């Protein structure tokens, strides 16, 4: 994680530098009349949009109205203050990862993967783990020095802990795709708590979680070592793993 220093302050761009233009849509539980539009403008105002134009208001049933608002947002964006989960490790090729594992571990790196809870979306974790991979990159199974155990979908946390122990996992990779009612957060916290309880700190496998809707900065909050979001590729994960496992 790091913070960039950059002097500039920027604004959203509609068609002219600095115009600050944005588009917003939402539904309010109000009828589609002038009062409803006024409420939409009020909300836009609270969001910092001024002037705001309600360009579309469409009743959905008698008690809800959908609004589209365009306008100029008066916030300044300070790229210098943006905090991102930067890659703080070198991005290696498969060959380099294999060599690093041989050099640093002198044995195979063991990875246990699963979708936990009731989540059955395996395409994401499979993309990272299976040979097939994604975006032209092969998954971890393809790395000669990795041993991958992919437990599949809807794995209970207790079972995951047991497998991790039995396989002597260096890292546990968990996928969470369903986010409704913050399912992904609840499940991840449950998982990390269970590992912390089951393993002494030094022996605990690396906990890595991924899925399209995670905030990569939330590691501490979720009790995991690393979070990977939308569009992750296997190489990034492999590079991270050898970096982090090697550092232990």
């Amino acid at each position, binding site marked *: 994680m790091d913070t960039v220093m950059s002097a500039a302050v920027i604004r959203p761009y509609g068609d002219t530098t600095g115009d600050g233009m944005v588009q917003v*849509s*939402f*539904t309010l539980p109000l009828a589609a009349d002038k009062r409803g539009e006024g409420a939409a403008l009020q909300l836009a105002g609270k969001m910092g949009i001024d002037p705001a134009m309600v360009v579309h208001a*469409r009743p*959905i*049933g008698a008690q*809800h109205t*959908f609004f589209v608002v365009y306008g100029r947002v008066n916030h300044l964006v300070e790229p210098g203050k943006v905090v991102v989960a930067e890659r703080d490790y070198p991005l290696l090729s498969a060959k380099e990862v294999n060599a690093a594992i041989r050099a640093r571990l002198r044995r195979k790196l063991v990875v246990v993967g699963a979708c936990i*809870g*009731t*989540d*059955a979306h*395996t*395409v994401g974790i499979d993309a990272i783990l299976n040979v097939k991979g994604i975006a032209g990159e092969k998954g971890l199974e393809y790395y000669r020095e990795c041993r991958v155990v992919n437990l*599949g*979908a*809807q794995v209970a946390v207790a079972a995951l802990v047991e497998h991790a122990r039995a396989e002597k996992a260096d890292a546990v990779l968990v996928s969470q795709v*369903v*986010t*409704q*009612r913050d*399912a992904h957060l609840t499940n991840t916290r449950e998982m990390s708590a269970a590992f912390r309880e089951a393993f002494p700190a030094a022996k605990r496998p690396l906990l890595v979680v991924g899925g*399209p809707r995670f905030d990569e900065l939330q590691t501490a909050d979720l009790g995991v070592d690393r979070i990977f979001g939308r569009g992750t590729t296997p190489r990034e994960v492999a590079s991270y793993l050898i970096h982090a496992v090697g550092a232990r």
Partner: protein
Amino acid sequence: MNKLKLDRRTVATARRLAAAAGRPVVDLARSHTTVSVERATLRLAGITGADPDGIPWVNRLVDTVVEQVGLGGGVAGPVFDALQRDGHQDLTLLAQKAAAGSVTFRAETPAAAKRAAARAVKTGLAQVDRRRRERDRLIKRYGDPKQRPWIYLIVATGDIHEDIPQAQAAARAGADVIAVIRSTGQSLLDYVPEGATREGFAGTYATQENFRLMRAALDDTSKEVGRYVRLTNYASGLCMPEIAALAGLERLDMMLNDSMYGILFRDINPIRTFVDQRFSRQVHARAGIIINTGEDNYLTTADAVDAAHTVTVSQLLNEYFAHEAGLEDWQLGLGHAFEINPELPESFRLELAHALLARELFPDAPLKWMPPTKHMTGDVFRGNLLDGFFNLAGALTGQGILLVGMMTEAVVTPWLSDRDIALQNVRYVLSAAGNLHEDFTPGAFIRDRAHTVLGEAVTLLRQIGRQGLLDAIGEGTFGIMRRPADRGKGLDGVAAREPGYFNPAIEILDGPSWTQS
């Protein structure tokens, strides 16, 4: 319709091969039973309610019977025997006693107990029949949708009390069919939750009470909009037979019900699935319910072009299994989907070829056409455009049931406004271009593609015929998921039927075909 100029002989061959591949699996289904088939039977016989932990009494009862006398003889005999011996007439009370450990079950069932069991099950099936007649009456009263395809919308808040107003709003805005999406995880529960529920994740639990509440609400709305609004749920997962029974009892109108979905996407044991499947379909047949099969799902894990023929093969198998279970053509909402990568040149014309192939192979089935999901991204503007082309493909190829795509597919379960935008989209396309099929005469590109897919399907069916369907599934033929027959969830709830196997529901459902009265 014969726009593709399909070769009738090839089509007949494909059907014959599908039947050959399916027959051994039907034999398997006819020679086994499962805990859920037995529980469904008792549900038809009248058992209701759950223990204080929410475990249904029917589960407690069946578990006790299986513990004492095993599953292979069927559960209805021992249960009605005990009931008669006990002097009680109430299955639920019996279940409570059994759970307390105070009932002993016997393997052999006297004829009187069998008769009592058959009577009870008949009462349940009579209720199913009444529901079916009621549906017919309401359709006559309120009318069917004016247009094809029927417009099918999902609600998925997780809370039945949020679902209901949203479903009603959708129906008012033009939905012909409402599907209440099920909570993640329910398919792996080996019991059906009880009561009205408000805590699902990305879907609402399928319970008898939720069915009842939603059906009643939609009956009100049907009256209001002057159009019978259909209700859909899922007869899928470990409790497929029971949910089918509950759907029949509560007059649901369609059910997602696929011969292989549970195997492939929920890692449910193949034998468990095929046995449950057959029973559930027999109940659907009786209830006049339209099934929706799940071929669309394959295209989320496999590529929609490479695996196009696996969809065709699965449709042919689903058709065979459905007919075998007594479903008629009008009940076969065979699934397929608009899932070709939109970046692929000619993707729309390829979609048309696939969709038209399904249409012409199953001319009397109300095909269920599923929207793009896999290639939807967070770009909701592009998403709404893709959904529009999906709607157009549906209209051009005469699909029967159009599951309306949402621009937020890759983001959230549908918002109220997403449904409204999606419905506007459908309405525009159907009104502006709904008759464009009159001007649509597939040229060589589309025809050739359809012929290729059909050819590949025949080849694959031959291959499946040689190796057996179970082995083919084991090897990852469908959706690239490998599912061996001796693995997967719920296998411990399966038993071979023993010589004296008694199940009054199956006797009736397997019997000479009853006619709708």
